[in-house]
């Protein structure tokens, strides 16, 4: 009898646990319903509330700016509620993609330009609605932005972004005092030095005590695939190469790639660069552990804070002596709207993006993000306003004019990883051609999947 009672009790307990696990917690706050408008539970308005999920990475200074803009938008759009979700920068794109795969994708989100082919392939981004930006046509919308800044977001005659949250290029940032100590004049601002000259300068700037490198001449994050592309792709293009051939296949064994990799190997052999000494791009530079780095406009404000006494300046991104054309890099984070969202949510989302892109001053002053949407601040065009905050920025802005966005491929991550692994092997002294042949075989396999 006892056993039967115990069995009944245990079964009841399990059933209760299962039921409670299946049911929504009564005391939990209302979960936003993604994809469908819901009726407001409070307030006097009887209009349905549209809930938008807005996802960004969690760069700390950007969070309060996003929150302030959300509050402003909600104040003027009482029928819209924005749920703000920010995730760690590392693997942020994967989080967005897995959210979409799970049917919980955001309505508005940040992502890098390199994601566009994959987004288009998966049909998760919507073409822009120009009317949300106060213009009638897509051409008029494009005219709101810096020329060429939206190129990476175009496909099939449509533009798939509402604007750029962070518009970047790379220039050469150098320690003026370190150059002076080595008997080198400050670098010209009106023309790029050559990569060959840079190799010589970087070698002379490296300071060694015995076998220990106390200061390395030139540095960048050698293990971060996107940096591999951003640094080496302009070099490749200057030599007349392109990673992706017109047939859409990667080519790691082309002559310009061999030349670029050979150049990097020589840099390493001369101790002008040393991946082992790298800890943090800006900290290493600010603390004098590296004499030159590559960086964009985002580097300016942190460097001034990290070491206010550091005497540094900016030079244009170098180019090869025999360059076929002057090429720098371009990359951007942008605001996208989900094609999976309902039409009314998309409309609200584009209006929200319109507000986000019109806060150029806040994005610069509080986050350090350069914007591509034209405007005047304090009676000055945007770039003049930026330069007024730090005249060194003029050199970086000159580099934008020669910028090209990264290669387009749905296999971006895989190819950039292959490129980085090849680079690292070459820097350890392996034979350039055999490493690149391996890379080519891996790239070919990646593309056939």
């Amino acid at each position, binding site marked *: 009898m006892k056993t039967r009672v115990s069995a009944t009790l245990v079964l009841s307990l399990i059933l209760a646990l299962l039921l409670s696990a299946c049911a929504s917690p009564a005391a939990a706050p209302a979960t936003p319903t993604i994809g469908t408008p819901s009726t407001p539970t409070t307030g006097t308005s009887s209009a349905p509330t549209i809930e938008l999920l807005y996802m960004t990475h969690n760069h700390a200074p950007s969070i309060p700016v996003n929150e302030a803009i959300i509050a402003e938008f909600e104040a003027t759009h009482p029928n819209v509620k924005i749920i703000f979700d920010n995730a760690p920068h590392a693997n942020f794109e994967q989080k967005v993609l897995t959210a979409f795969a799970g049917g919980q994708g955001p309505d508005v989100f940040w992502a890098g330009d390199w994601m566009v082919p994959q987004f288009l392939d998966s049909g998760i981004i919507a073409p822009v609605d120009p009317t949300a930006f106060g213009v009638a046509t897509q051409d008029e919308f494009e005219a709101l932005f810096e020329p060429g800044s939206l190129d990476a977001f175009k496909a099939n005659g449509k533009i798939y972004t509402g604007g750029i949250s962070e518009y970047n290029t790379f220039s050469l940032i150098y320690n003026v005092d370190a150059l002076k100590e080595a008997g080198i004049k400050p670098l010209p601002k009106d023309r790029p030095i050559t990569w060959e000259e840079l190799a010589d300068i970087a070698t002379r700037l490296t300071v060694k005590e015995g076998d220990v490198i106390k200061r390395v001449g030139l540095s960048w994050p050698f293990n971060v695939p996107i940096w591999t592309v951003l640094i080496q792709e302009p070099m490749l293009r200057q030599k007349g190469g392109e990673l992706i051939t017109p047939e859409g296949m990667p080519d790691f064994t082309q002559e310009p790639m061999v030349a670029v990799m050979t150049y990097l190997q020589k840099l390493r052999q001369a101790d002008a660069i040393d991946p082992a000494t790298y800890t943090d791009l800006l900290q290493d530079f600010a603390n004098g552990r590296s004499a030159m780095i590559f960086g964009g406009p985002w580097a300016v404000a942190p460097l001034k804070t990290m070491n206010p006494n550091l005497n540094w300046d900016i030079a244009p991104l170098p180019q090869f002596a025999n360059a076929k054309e002057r090429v720098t890099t371009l990359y951007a984070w942008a605001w996208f709207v989900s094609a999976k969202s309902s039409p009314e949510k998309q409309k609200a989302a584009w209006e929200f993006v319109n507000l986000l892109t019109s806060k150029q001053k806040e994005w610069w002053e509080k986050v350090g993000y350069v914007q591509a949407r034209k405007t005047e601040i304090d009676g000055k065009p945007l770039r003049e306003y930026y330069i007024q905050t730090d005249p060194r920025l003029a050199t970086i802005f000159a580099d934008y004019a020669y910028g090209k966005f990264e290669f387009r491929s749905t296999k971006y991550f895989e190819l950039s*990883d292959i490129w980085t692994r090849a680079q690292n092997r070459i820097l350890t002294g392996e034979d350039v051609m055999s490493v690149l042949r391996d890379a080519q075989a891996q790239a070919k396999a990646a593309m056939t999947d």
Partner: protein
Amino acid sequence: MFGTPQEQNLRHQSFHQRRRGILGNTLEARKKRLGLVFALPAFLFFGAFYLYPLFQTFYVSLFSWGLLDDPKFLGMTNYSRLFTDKEFINSVWVSFLYSFGVVIPIWFIALGLALIFNRTFPGRQAYLTVYYIPAVISLTVWSLIWLLMYNPTFGIFSVAARALGITGLRMLDDPSTAMPAMIILSIWKGTPVYMVIFIAGLRAIPNDYYEAAQIDGANAAQCLLYITLPLLRPVFLYVMVISIIEAFKVFTPMYILTNGGPGSATRVLSMFIFQNGFQYLKMGYASAASVIFLLILLALAIIQFRLLRFQQND
């Protein structure tokens, strides 16, 4: 083919006894049913969180699937591709190299420390606490600390090496030293956990055996060889199986210190699977690699059980 009539009858009886054993109305039958009820949550948990994902992984491995597109059936193509993929073969090799490079020293160091800490001596508890500290530090924090320790300019290893007259030590930057660097930090991190398991095993050995052996004139080495080690066999088996599985699953140190590099020198299997699955969105391919990973671990566990002739009554 079906045995003699007597054997058939016995089998028939046995079946009905078993059936009655579960479904009957005896006290024993009710107890068995209650036992099943108690075990049900564990079965449900195991089924939902282990068996279902396991079968799902195998199912996905038969497809080409990028998370956001429709899966395309490939059959065993992902598996055949894996066996010709140099990066996958390298990852398997790197995983073996790392795992056995870590676990073999751990077994001996952990056992040695356990034997030391199983005795009483002044400051024993304090030493034990200090030795256990690495085990309670998060692996991410541990990896970041070692990243600085391996720095060729100011890292403690380079400084110590220079003091000994060894120059040019670049632990993480050199393909020949990157894996030993990973192995050293993992041995340091993993040893305390297994040391505690060995101590628990040692304390479970009745003191009577040692007393009897001493009366028979056995010395310390003989006690170790003929009492301690044989009686620790089940613990040793547990440590071997768990440590090898844990070592094969390693991911964090490689992700933080080298990102699998230089080249692919530290690109272990779990990193290969992570990159293919969550960075390249090749879910089918990553699932196939995961199935192979599982089979490798399964084979290793079986070999270990066989080697130690593990029996249920151990």
